[in-house]
């Protein structure tokens, strides 16, 4: 199925010095955890998770880290971008008491998930963690959802001084959750996995994506050989436990293995 759209940027929101949210006025039929490929046809094409997806609009939240994202940060309202998707697997939307664990710029996808969980009457608790205060994102947006929320920073500059994983471990000891969702840097997820001995979970994992439609093989993950752009980026516990690659290495644009 051809899923390409050429859309004008409807609004740009500055989240932090290095993070912006790009809004588009278009109805996109998508599920939380799914991503889109974005290009201006000049600077490459890159994957971004949907952070907001409402009846008549959607958004992505982008951290500036390299060439592509730098160029994206130069765009203005009304500029066109070419978008394809949504692609990939999505989070299971529970009805029960669930814990969401987010780290850094991978948190916004959990906002889209929270909204879906809430409309499904789930009981949502969120841990939003970052290195430091300036890097915490979506604080106000999550606040407006009236969920149970914990903010943590590595340096204690906002909320509690702890990592997302430490906080999760603490809360899981005292409270009963039926499911954990997490999105963040791979080593955070890898550390979190060890704390989730009994509970079911889903993680969003990032791998280098090129075609995003499951033909090129760039984003396959060992030893299952599944395509992270189609069978991922959201994987469940059963699959994650089988991965030998998770937490150890990923492949770059050429397919060469790079250690974490």
């Amino acid at each position, binding site marked *: 199925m*051809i899923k*390409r759209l*050429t859309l004008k940027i409807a609004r740009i929101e500055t989240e932090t010095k290095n993070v912006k949210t790009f809004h588009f006025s278009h109805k996109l039929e998508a599920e939380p955890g799914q991503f889109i*490929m974005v*290009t*201006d*046809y*000049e*600077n*490459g*094409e*890159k994957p971004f998770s949907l952070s907001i997806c409402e009846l008549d609009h959607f958004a992505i939240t982008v951290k500036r880290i390299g060439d592509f994202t730098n160029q994206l940060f130069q765009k203005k309202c009304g500029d*066109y971008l*070419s978008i394809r998707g949504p692609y990939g697997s999505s989070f299971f939307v529970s009805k029960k008491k669930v814990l969401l664990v987010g780290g850094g710029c991978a948190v916004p996808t959990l906002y889209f998930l929270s909204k879906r969980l809430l409309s499904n009457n789930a009981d949502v608790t969120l841990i939003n963690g970052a290195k430091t205060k300036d890097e915490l994102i979506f604080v106000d947006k999550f606040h407006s959802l009236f969920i149970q929320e914990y903010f943590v920073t590595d340096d204690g500059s906002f909320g509690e001084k702890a990592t997302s994983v430490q906080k999760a471990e603490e809360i899981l000891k005292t409270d009963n959750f039926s499911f954990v969702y997490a999105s963040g840097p791979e080593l955070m997820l890898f550390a979190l996995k060890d704390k989730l001995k009994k509970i079911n979970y889903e993680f969003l994992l990032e791998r280098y994506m*090129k*075609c*995003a*439609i*499951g*033909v*090129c*093989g*760039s984003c*396959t*993950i*060992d*030893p*299952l*050989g*599944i*395509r992270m752009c*189609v*069978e991922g980026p959201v994987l469940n516990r059963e699959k994650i436990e089988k991965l030998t690659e998770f937490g150890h290495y990923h*492949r*770059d*644009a*050429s*397919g*060469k*293995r790079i250690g974490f």
Partner: protein
Amino acid sequence: MHKRLKIKFLGSEIDSPIVLPAGVMDMSFSSLQDAIINGAGIVTSKSLTVQPRAGHEGPVVAEFEGGMLNAMGLCNPGIDDGLKEIEQFKTNFAAPVIVSIFATNVHDFMQLAKKVDHSSAEFLELNLSCPNVFDEFGIPLAASPQQVFEIIKAVKEMTSKPVIAKLSPNVHAIIPIAESAQKAGADALCLINTVGPGMLIDIRMRKPILKNKFGGMSGPCIKPIALKLIYEVHSKIGLPIIGTGGVQSGEDVIEMWMAGASLVGVGTAVHYNGMNIFTKIKQEIIQFLEDQNYHLLMDVPRLPSQVREK
């Protein structure tokens, strides 16, 4: 149970006629394994080069009604790391492997072939036909019978493994090229690589959709071209053929077989259905054999050959 689909190919007996072709889903040992688990008989590596290549910037693919364009730009981890993936594949799986190699000159082809010769792979495929690196390397080698001859001759001296030449459909006469491949000692041919290349435009942004502007066409729209070339080459040249181009179903495999293919590559269709498309295709072939009262796929007669010209 699918022994009915076994095929003899270059002295090996292969359980399934389905080949995972070069460049599709074959970056890692684990995706090669997944292809076998899902019913492929042989898997091919990415086209490996002397040095790693990151490939072209995106967009590298563009879909359209009849298939897709791709300009991956030969991304691969380089021959050394690429062969490591093959060795890892071989630690758990016995299925035959084709290593595809790409170079722009005889010397590099020889160097690559030597490395493949020392690997556990069964077959060596020469990608003489990538249409997506024109800016970098110019016209594909497969456009020149002379170059095809020189490369294959040189490579044959470096390896005892059977050599498959992957040819381009984008030439005005394929027979002289296939003939030179045969004269130089090629053991089999793979037909076809992607067609065109073609182009698509985003009319709102007034830009080509592919960053590389042009990309090789694959998928259902190229099947008739593949069939025609396979039929023509099979009629005139005795070499076994891996038929590739637009195959999506068991009936497509039968068509390729009738045209003259011994094995059949299934690439772009993996995008539509994932690797379990191979399982579906195998079931459909069996269904055809049942309906038409053939026991083995190998019992299905080919089309009568084209009468020799001249």
